[in-house]
Structures are given as C-alpha cells and as structure tokens.
C-alpha cells in the first residue's frame, strides 16, 4: 500500500511543524499557490511504520550476501555513519567561514593526502559527487590539457568495448567521439588493434584495470606507451580499484587521471543507488586543471590552518561541478574508514578481496560451472557463463539469478560485460567470511540440480519475494510514474 493510500484528510504529525503562522501579506496574491499540494496526510507513527516496513522489502549488505560484480558490496562500518552525523559536521553550512570549519577541512585535507598515496597520483580533488561525475571531470581535464597546448586535432577517446556504459556516455558529454577498441578472447585488450587506432586524433584512452572481464590487463605498460606516444592521456576508471588497493597503484601503471568510487572501495553506503562520491586523482600534467574547491594547508604564525583553494589559486581549473564542494558527508565516512583501516589494513583490502574471488572461482569450477576466462587468475571478481544451461535446459542466467533470491542470496551482476553471453559477474569482497562463500556455492549447485530436474520451476522464480517477476513491458508502455487519486475522488 502506498503512503498516499493510507492518507486521511486532516490527519497530521502535529509535533513536527512549527505553529501555524500566516503567509506574510507582502507576498502578492498572484504569486501564491491556489490549490494545496497533494501530499500524504498521516500521523508520525503511521509514517514510521510504513517506511520501516518498506525497508524490510529490500535485500542489503546488512541482511544478505550481495556478490554484485563491479559494485563492491562490502561492509559499511556503522561507526563511519555515526561520525558523519555528528552535529558539528551535519550542521555545518557549506558556506560557513573557514574559521568555523577547521575540523571539517582537516579531515578533507587528510583524505586528499591518503587518496594520493594509495593511487600514486600527484593531486586529488574530492568534489565529484559520483563516479560518473569523476569521469566527466577527468575527461574535461584531458580536453583542457590538449586545448591549452593548442592541440585541437584530438577529437577521439578510445574505449575498450567491454567498458562500463558510463565511459562512452562521458566522452560524448565532453564533446568527444568514441572509438571502441576490441578485447581478445582471453580478456586482454587487443594491442595490435589499439596500435592501429591510436594517432594524432587520440585525446585519450579510458580504461578499467582489472577490466570488466574480471582479469588484470597484462599489457598495461604497453598500452600506456602506445597511447602516450600518440600524444594521448590515460584515464583510469576506478570502478575496480578494490581489487588492487594496496597492491598496485594506477599512477605506477602509467595513468594520468582517474576517479575513485568511494562508495565501493572506501565502504561508504550505496544507499539504494546513491549518494556516492567520485574524487579524482591526477598526475603532474593535469594538476593545473583540477576541479575546485580543493583543501589547502598553510602554516600561519606557526599554526597549521586549512583553507579552500578556488579558481584564484588554480586559475586554469575546469571549474566547479556542483553548487558547493560535493558529497561532504560521504567523504567524511570514507575518511573515517581510511583512518580505521590504516596503512596495514589498506594493503590487505586488495589481497583478501582477491583471495575470496579466487576461492569462489575455484569452487564454481569444481561444481561444474563454466568460467568465462579459464586459466586466468580472478581479480576481486570473476565471470561465469551459463550459456550451456540456457542452450540445453532453457534456463538462462536471469532465471538462475531470480532463483538465487529464493535461497537468500542477492544475484551477481547479470549480462555484464556484454561480451560474454549469459554471464554472471561475481564479486564477493574482502569482508565476507568463507562460510558465506561456501553457502553461495551450495545454492548454485542446488539450483543447477533444479534446472536439470524441473526447469519450469526455476524459470518461474522467485517465489519468496514480495512480488513475482514484474511486467517490465507494461511498465514501459503504460507509464505510471506518479500516484493520482482515483477519478471518483477528484
């Protein structure tokens, strides 16, 4: 039931609003609202119960193993959430004077320094509000760099065809044409094809490493050389940074600019699809173009003080990406996580996420599932393909995924990357204990048996969720996006 449908005219949560006052007479009547907005009318307890019950209709990390590939669904520390909501942080106005902001600014400055260290970059700006905005800032900086050198012939961004859809969408938002680079059957980029494609028209290459195929790009140094020799810059999509955190730094692989998804690698909550944070890191050449604001530190009369660096400090900046400084509350959570993890903990993230994924991959293989890239190491994730099951049993990767929900596991990423038919991209993360991984494998084996014995049953899954499979075609053909009162009540 919708909150609207339990609404009763005149019912209110009285303690939540100030005493009624009149609208000031100075506001002309023509500018006032004529008809009261159609919002729910309900009581405080009714609201609390409604939304608490809705929350229980969700899978989440806190309730279920959630091995969603490329999304890094690791534990989100409760302590980080509590810290970000401390009154001094939650109540700080974005335009508060610096003298009232030293606590907040010091956290941001130190986070910048930590992120520089773990990525091997020379500068960090925290301001992008999501990975996609980080990508946008990164490619806009590449553009600013070429333009500053009067190099106007560079009109193309190269992108491996296994890439996330955001990469090409971002390149277009920055005014570039996209050229796709093929990926070989072993998951590596086709270096010979890349050599053909790179040239004086190349502004840069956008790449994820480990790639979306769940393998580490072995030719990375050669790829970097080819692109740099052609005069282009290398963009690192940090979607899979968790795989290598503490083991390899994008800066050391030759990347010039990157974004990090703090909601993945630094354990800030995904929140059902946001908010995230997508800070960018840059090498020497792009330092002058970083998006503002950035936090700087100064020694004032022997005392360390922090202040905002703006376009006056960074005159060639690509500018601002939001009204203020980005998703500060998410950044505070990431800072907390980094401090608790510390140096040693940071080195262990890549190691244990990789250990868990390789363990699961081996177990999947032993259970008879087909690996997409047999013979390769898993990174923090790996791919299986269910195309045999689809062909022989008529049970698709989507059917397996839906049935898995009945076993109490969230499905892995399905049908991505697009290159591998009937695929699952599986990412366990380092915060899962091996018993959770074993439970998942047992469920897989059981579903395989069900698919062989009773395919129709699997194809009808799920059975235990609040709803069965939904009619997406009806949803798109007969758009119902907004609740409206029944015609008789109007």
């Amino acid at each position, binding site marked *: 039931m919708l909150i609207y449908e339990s609404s009763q005219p005149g019912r209110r949560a009285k303690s939540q609003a100030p005493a009624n006052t009149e609208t000031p007479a100075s506001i002309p009547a023509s500018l006032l609202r004529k008809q009261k*907005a159609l919002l729910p009318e309900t009581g405080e307890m009714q609201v609390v119960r409604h939304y608490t019950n809705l929350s229980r209709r969700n*899978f989440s990390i806190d309730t279920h193993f959630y091995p969603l590939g490329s999304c890094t*669904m690791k534990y989100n520390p409760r302590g980080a959430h509590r*810290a970000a909501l401390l009154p001094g942080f939650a109540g700080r106005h*974005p335009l508060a004077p610096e003298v009232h902001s030293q606590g907040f600014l010091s956290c941001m400055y130190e986070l910048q320094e930590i992120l520089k260290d773990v990525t091997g970059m020379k500068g960090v700006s925290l301001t992008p*509000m999501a990975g996609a905005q980080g990508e946008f800032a990164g490619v806009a900086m590449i553009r600013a760099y070429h333009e500053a050198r009067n190099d106007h012939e560079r009109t193309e961004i190269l992108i491996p065809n296994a890439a996330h859809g955001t990469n090409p969408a971002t390149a277009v938002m920055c005014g570039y044409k996209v050229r796709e680079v093929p990926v070989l059957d072993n998951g590596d980029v086709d270096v010979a094809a890349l050599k053909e494609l790179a040239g004086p028209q190349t502004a840069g290459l956008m790449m994820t490493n480990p790639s979306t195929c769940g393998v580490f790009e072995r030719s990375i140094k050669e790829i970097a050389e080819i692109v740099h020799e052609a005069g282009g810059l290398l963009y690192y999509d940090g979607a899979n940074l968790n795989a290598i955190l503490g083991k390899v730094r994008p800066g050391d692989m030759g990347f010039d600019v990157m974004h990090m998804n703090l909601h993945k690698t630094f354990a800030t909550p995904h929140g059902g699809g946001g908010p995230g944070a997508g800070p960018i890191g840059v090498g020497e050449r792009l330092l002058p173009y970083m998006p503002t604001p950035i936090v700087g530190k100064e020694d004032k009369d022997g005392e360390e003080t922090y202040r905002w660096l703006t376009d006056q400090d960074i005159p060639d900046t690509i500018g601002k990406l939001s009204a203020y400084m980005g998703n500060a509350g998410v950044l505070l959570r990431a800072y907390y996580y980094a401090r*608790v993890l510390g140096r040693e903990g*940071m080195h262990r993230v890549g190691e244990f996420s990789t250990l868990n994924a390789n363990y699961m991959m081996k177990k999947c293989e032993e259970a008879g599932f087909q690996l997409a890239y047999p013979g390769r190491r898993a990174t923090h994730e790996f791919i299986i393909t269910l195309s045999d099951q689809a062909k022989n049993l008529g049970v698709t990767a989507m059917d397996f995924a839906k049935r898995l929900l009945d076993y109490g596991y969230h499905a892995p990423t399905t049908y991505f990357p697009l290159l591998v038919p009937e695929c699952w991209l599986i990412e366990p993360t380092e915060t899962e204990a091996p018993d959770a991984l074993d439970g998942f494998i047992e469920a897989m084996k059981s579903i395989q048996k069900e698919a062989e014995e009773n395919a129709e049953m699997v194809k009808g899954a799920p059975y235990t969720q609040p709803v069965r499979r939904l009619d997406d075609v009806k949803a798109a053909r007969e758009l119902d996006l907004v609740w409206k009162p029944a015609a008789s009540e109007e």
Partner: protein
Amino acid sequence: MPYIPHTDADIQAMLETIGVDSIDDLFDEIPADILSQPLSQVPEGISEMEASRLMADRAAADSNVACFIGAGAYEHHIPAAVWEIVGRGEFMTAYTPYQAEASQGTLQVIYEYQSMMAHLNAMDVSNASLYDGGSALAEAVLMAIRANRKSKSKKVLIPTSVNPLYRSATHGIVENQGISIEEVAFCSDMGTTPLSALEHYAGQDYAALVIQQPNFFGCLEDVHALTDWAHANKMLVIAVVNPTSLAILAPPGDWGEAGADISVGEGQPLGIPLSSGGPYFGFMCCKQGIVRQMPGRIIGRTVDLEGKEGFTLTLQAREQHIRRSKATSNICTNQGLAMTAATIYTSLLGADGLAAVANASATNTQTLVAALTEIDGVETVFAAPYFHEVVIRVPGNATDVLAKLAERRVQGGFDVSTAYAGMDDAILVCATETKNAADIQSYKVALADVLSA
C-alpha cells in the same frame, strides 16, 4: 585486520583449495615492477573508539555557531524519525534496484517520492533525483535543448538573479557540448528580472529561459509574465524552485498560461542536514510529453505475473548502461538516501506542515530584517517582495563585517560581493523556522557591536 573476518586457518584452507602457496601468488599476472611499495602517507590504523574520539573532537571545533546563511542551503528542523529510518541497513546498504523483486522497498519509496515531487511542483512526472540543485540545472539545460523541437538553437537564457553557484556548475557541465549560456541582467532597484531586460531577445532562437523563484536574492519574480514571454518566443521554461516555498508559492506547473516545462531545484530543505554541501539531491520534474528526454532513473508501477502490484525501473533505454554514448546523461545513480529522507520528511510534514515551515521562515526573516535595519546605516537593497532571504546593505565592506561577526560565532550571511561585482556592501541573510526571537536579537547585538567598533 579491520573488517576482514578470515582466521589463519581459513586462509590456509582457501589457499589449498585454490592450489597456491600464498596470497601473493594470486597476483602473478601483474608485472612485478609495478607492484606497490609500502604506503607512506596513510597513518597507522586506529580502533573505532579512537576514531570516534577523533571525529567528535573535530566536529566539536566547528560547532556552536549561529547560522544566518542560506544561499541555496537552509537549516530546517529535521524530525528525529527521518534519519532513524534512513539509517536502517536495509535502505542504507542496498544497491541500485536492478533486481526488482529484491528491491521493492527502495523502488516503492522512489515511486512515492516521484509522486510527492510531481504534486508539489504541479508537474506531470518526476525522476528519481539527481546529484544536487546545481547539477540538476545543468541537466535541465541539456534536456531542454534535446526536447525543444521548435528550436534548433544550442543557446539558453539565464538571468543573473539565478543562483550564481548553480550558474557556474551549469557552465562547467555544459560548455564542452558547444552550448552557450547568455546572461540576462536583473533590475538593480527591484532585484528581479524585468520583461524589459528580455525584449532584446524576442523573436530570436533560444532553447529555453531559466526562471528561479524565489531568485538568489530571495526576491519573487513575476513568474507568470516571464513564462508567457518565453513560450510566446518558442522557448521552453526551466523553473528553479525551493521545495519548501512551494507549499505557499505558485508551483511551476501553474506559472503563466501553460506552466513551466521542466522544474528543478535543490532538495536539501526537505529533511537533509546542511552537512557542508552534500549529500543533497536535485529534483527534476517535467511535462509528460518530454519525459523521454529526462535524464536519470525513473520508477514505474506495474504488475507481476500473478497480477500483483509492484515497482520497477522503467524507460531504461534512455540510460547509459543501454544507450552508452547516446544516453541522455552519463548519470548512473540517484541520491537514494537523501531522496528517501525527503520522502519521509514530506510525509511527516504534509502540505499543511510544509506551509507552516514556509510561513514561519518567511515571517522570521521579516523579523530579522526589521531588527537589523534598526541599526544605523543598515538597509534592504531591493524593493521586490521576498520569501525567506533578503539582501541587506551594511556600512563599509561586507567581507570585513562578516569576518568580525564570525569572531563572535555568528555566521551573518552570504557575502554577495564574492559573486556580484560592485555589491561590496551587500549580505544575503536568511532566518528559517529554527531561529527564535533570542537568536535574532543576538545577531542584531553582534552586528551593532561590529559596526560601532
């Protein structure tokens, strides 16, 4: 290690299953010469107790201030229930609702949110939210250019009375796509955009006119006349509005003869803490006819195979994961948690409660203005009626005055000179429903003290 549950025995057993001797062996596909050296700038790890103490100390350093700054982010009372519920792990630690059957909670909240936003704005449809108000305006500009079939132009008109922080974010986001933004001057007596400033553009090809209500100075524009002018000149109207104000002010769907075409704004006033500027959320609504040009996630109501009502992502073919380089935007998230908070907030307040917040804020700002202008040399700058923000003029330099107020733990307002040349003595002040008579009095005392020194 923090958050890693493996015992030594676990590790040994797992390595044996995989068939390697050590964890390092799992990295043997990576060229050895790029493997990391020990990190040098990351401090040693600390316990939750130590981290909590560290964060509490830093937060305390920024506390105990009286804030009269608005400028797009407003301090409103947030009911305790809002963040208690949003903080439930089932909302907080879920991902994007791609598996609809396992995400009905998140999906229904979004559908309810879309309904509330559409009704509050008196528009046909809403998306599931964008990053913030500033970037929502940028997306609205891009959308208007796609959606305006009468116009071939990649130009839009934006009055300078529109929030300068939004204008700069918009500029940064759209400029690489060859879009140009032309600024329209405001009337320096009234603080609003007069039709006479637009006459010059009549009959020319622009995709859209942006109208902010209340505008950055808190002043109320003649939205009906501006909307009708834009439509007469084949431009779409992009409304930028404050959601609290919509409880009492004419909503974008009611502007002029035909209403605004796209409506966006900052959602922060609806239950989101100030939190240094984010996470907030940007809302976006539009008319039904241009819904396919809308960026971002959209949820629809449908039925399952037994005919039971359910919710699912819809119109996905517009989005980056399907359309790739031809997507309406590269955005892949909404601001889920902030949007959830706003949905709960709006349910708790309802139309009457929200109107009470709006009225109390407007009334308190009038009280503040009356108090401050009793001080010699302090006066209001613009003559137009206002909602809950006002530009005042102080004797001397606003930047200096604000710095001296800060020494007295008063955040006196937004320094207008940082965004508008020639307005060196101007401060944008705001008092919401959270301010009482004593707060207003202490601001007055502090300002009088600063000015007399």
